[in-house]
């Protein structure tokens, strides 16, 4: 598999992803400057975390106009894979590749933590390395991860099995107490209808190297190869 990691000005998790895809999984990984448009050689595009364009205006709102995004949309239309993590998820919603929006955390603070996440089902190429309803531990680090969508959209997401990750308690409880940022239905990550675009607030790339104490993210990358 050939990975591409988009670098917007202000991206800051781009190299962390390459450390996993290239450093740990030995996959060819190319950094894509946001002004590039030729990404045909790549199988999986990852939009990394960070603060693209300083999060000015709204998270991801400026990045979506970067030249590379037109090519990313074409990449999606061809059925190829796109993963947006954290700021990358915000860019995907702004670009209309995923429904809903990510707003300011309920407590108005940035939250960096390592918390339980429930894998909703493993009937997706992104989660086939996990058990359905398995509880894993992923790091989160965001100020605007409060997922919002209207009732109809939420229902559609549920009905189509588009919700892949939810914030939960240690035993998988989905409730308000275990919702760090106020997201609707505790949503932490969703896919598009076709299933080839995933956006998630947690950072699987920060949980892929055992030396750092967290390794539950490894299965996500391992199963893309």
């Amino acid at each position, binding site marked *: 598999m050939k990975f591409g990691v988009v670098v917007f*000005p*202000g991206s*800051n*998790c781009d*190299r*962390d992803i*390459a*450390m*996993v895809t290239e*450093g*740990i999984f030995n996959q060819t990984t190319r950094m894509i400057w946001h002004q590039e448009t030729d990404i045909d050689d790549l199988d999986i595009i990852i939009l990394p*975390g*960070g*603060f693209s*364009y*300083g*999060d*000015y205006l709204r998270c991801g709102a400026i990045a979506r106009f970067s030249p590379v995004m037109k090519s990313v949309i074409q990449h999606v239309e061809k059925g190829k894979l796109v993963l947006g993590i954290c700021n990358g998820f915000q860019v995907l919603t702004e670009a209309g590749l995923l429904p809903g929006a990510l707003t300011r955390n309920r407590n108005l*603070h*940035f*939250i*960096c*933590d*390592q918390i339980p996440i429930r894998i909703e089902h493993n009937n997706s190429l992104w989660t086939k390395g996990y058990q359905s309803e398995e509880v894993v531990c992923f*790091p989160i*680090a965001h*100020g605007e991860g409060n997922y919002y969508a209207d009732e109809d959209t939420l229902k559609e997401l549920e009905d189509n099995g588009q919700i892949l990750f939810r914030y939960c308690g240690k035993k998988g409880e989905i409730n308000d107490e275990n919702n760090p940022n106020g997201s609707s239905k505790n949503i932490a990550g969703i896919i598009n209808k076709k299933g080839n675009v995933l956006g998630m607030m947690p*950072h699987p*790339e*920060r949980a892929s*190297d055992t*030396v*750092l*104490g967290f390794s539950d993210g490894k299965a996500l990358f391992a199963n893309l190869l």
Partner: protein
Amino acid sequence: MSVPFTPQEIAAEGIKPTEYEEIVNRLGRHPNKAELGMFGVMWSEHCCYKNSKPLLSQFPSDGDRILVGPGENAGVVDFGNGLRVAFKIESHNHPSAIEPFQGAATGVGGILRDIFTMGARPIAILNSLRFGNLDNPHTRRIFKGVVEGISHYGNCVGVPTVGGEVYFNSAYSGNPLVNAMAIGLMETDDIVKAGASGIGNPVLYVGSTTGRDGMGGASFASAELTDESMDDRPAVQVGDPFLEKSLIEACLEAFKTGAVVAAQDMGAAGITCSTSEMAAKGGVGIELDLDKIPAREKAMIPYEYLLSESQERMLFVAHKGREQELIDIFEKWGLHAVVAGKVIPESIVRILHKNAIAAEVPSTALADNTPIYHHKVLTNPPEYAMKAWAWREEELPEVEKNGVKEQNWEQILLTLLDTPSIASKRWIYRQYDHQVQNNTVMLPGGADAAIIRVRPVNGKPQLAKTGIAATTDCNPRYVYLEPNLGAKLAVAEAARNLSCVGAEPIAVTDNLNFGSPEKPIGYWQLHHACQGISEACREFQTPVTGGNVSLYNETIDSEGNPQPIYPTPVIGMVGLIPDINKICGQGWQQEGDLIYILGKFNPSFGASEYLATIHDTVAGKPPELDYELEKQVQEVCRDGIRQGLVKSAHDVTEGGISVALAESCISGKLGAKVTLPKINARLDKVLFGELASLIIISINPENKNLWESLLTEKLGDNWQKIGEVKSTNLMINNLINLDVKTITDTWEKAIENRL
């Protein structure tokens, strides 16, 4: 010619009448307005250390691992295998007092620039913070603003904030301390330095635009805060971490081309400081044309350009003919890069504006040949100290059967754990991205020091074995009550914290936060603390590679009474971990593990948190420090960790052994049954008294014999087995029996409950 300024105009630049005469001597004429402003900022304590230079010169600064010592933007040490680590601490106290969010944010931005200016990529940030008490609404506003500011800047710029320390004490109510330390890993072959060279080489201005923000911030930082200081808000800079992130990438890319001769960030005193320091260090001159500088505001006059502290700007000297290469890199990152001047042979800084010379000053007059004040040190300790030392423990109420002052020992322990200075700092560090860059080996709160894997920017994780441990330490009450001993104890604690994670202490960066040196007590504190640091750094072989001095930390209340802060010499120390798999945290690991203390159990009341919190008494002297014992204890702890014997290690500090045991329980989510050594002392002294050189560790019982023979060999009698990791309660003798959950809840919510 008569003096072209009124005494008020001169004083407004922070210049004393005698200093004005010195300026005239150096120039051979009267300065103009712009030049006067340049001298004002460059001759401030913040820039030229006029009060502290004689004291700083005694610090040890050489060592086998020291690649760059004091005088450059940051110190650089050799971590072996080609790994070179740059690090430095800096204060942003006064701006944070006036505008906490921007003050703290730009403090982080400034220290990061010091690191990447050297060619090092910033890999970690630590913070040492001091606030008033949280029951004061003004303090709460400052506290929240500072945390938010650090979070905003550090998170966005993509450098993990991995550790630090926070104390709360009314001594800091009007004058918080915000000290930020940054660590970087050298990415360029050559360390980029500040000395300009090559007559005719172009001088490039790069980064953000220049505006009127932060005007005269360095002078402002070198004066007492008053009720009117709120009107000085324009002296506080405004930061943009997004620009800084791009600036990091662009600078490192630019340095790697080899086209850059020298670089200097624009921090305090902006263009004035960077041009004069680059010129003075290179023994050359610089001519700079202000008309070329990208401005964000219209109609700025030279005085404003020269004193602006707009953020995210740098000055480069480039090799002639290679300007365009550099300009292209900066433009790719959306940043400015313009040729604004050149290196000239005469040792002067010449500033042009509208085709005329706006200022022309010998560069050394601004940067090197600056005033120095030698103050007299009080020969006898000041009254406050004598009075505090006269305190005797007989003044305390008598110990009752189960406690003191109608509180039992369990209640007292919980009260101490509920003290914000001791309590969990989770509310704070949860707002800091502490994992970005994928090298954070130890999460905040998990150990006595932060641990980062030292991995080159695109390096394979499997190949990165070296770790760096870092800590910032200073118990200001100790320093207040005995500046010399207190400062030594700060160095000892920093080294001990590094040893508790298995790291060998390597080098120090210090941040001297003191009151006015012009007052006898202030100077007495500064003088003795510097001696203490100097002696202890020699003992631990941790040279000082640089740092920062922040004096005049006093607030003047409405009645005009100066209120000095506790003298706070913060010690930032870095340590080397040869193998990141051989480390440990502070929490118990497994039930049945045996608990030992390393060191001599000789607690005392002096300067303790127990006296301050439970008896409202700030008195006595801090605990004695025995260098030999301290070094032996640290060494055996490190050895034990590296041999895989020691499973947890935590040193005993504020709140004494009971608090330290409670913290190991909280962190490990396990209880412990402990019998403290029998000593002839009041029970409260045994439980909560403080001491130096004591570490609590736990080991697997299988290794008991091996471990104990190692201890006897290295420490003689100075160790003891005190108990084992057990069940869900912390049990100390038959005095304390508390469930770990209760302890944890109290400790974890203390700060949040006060907000």
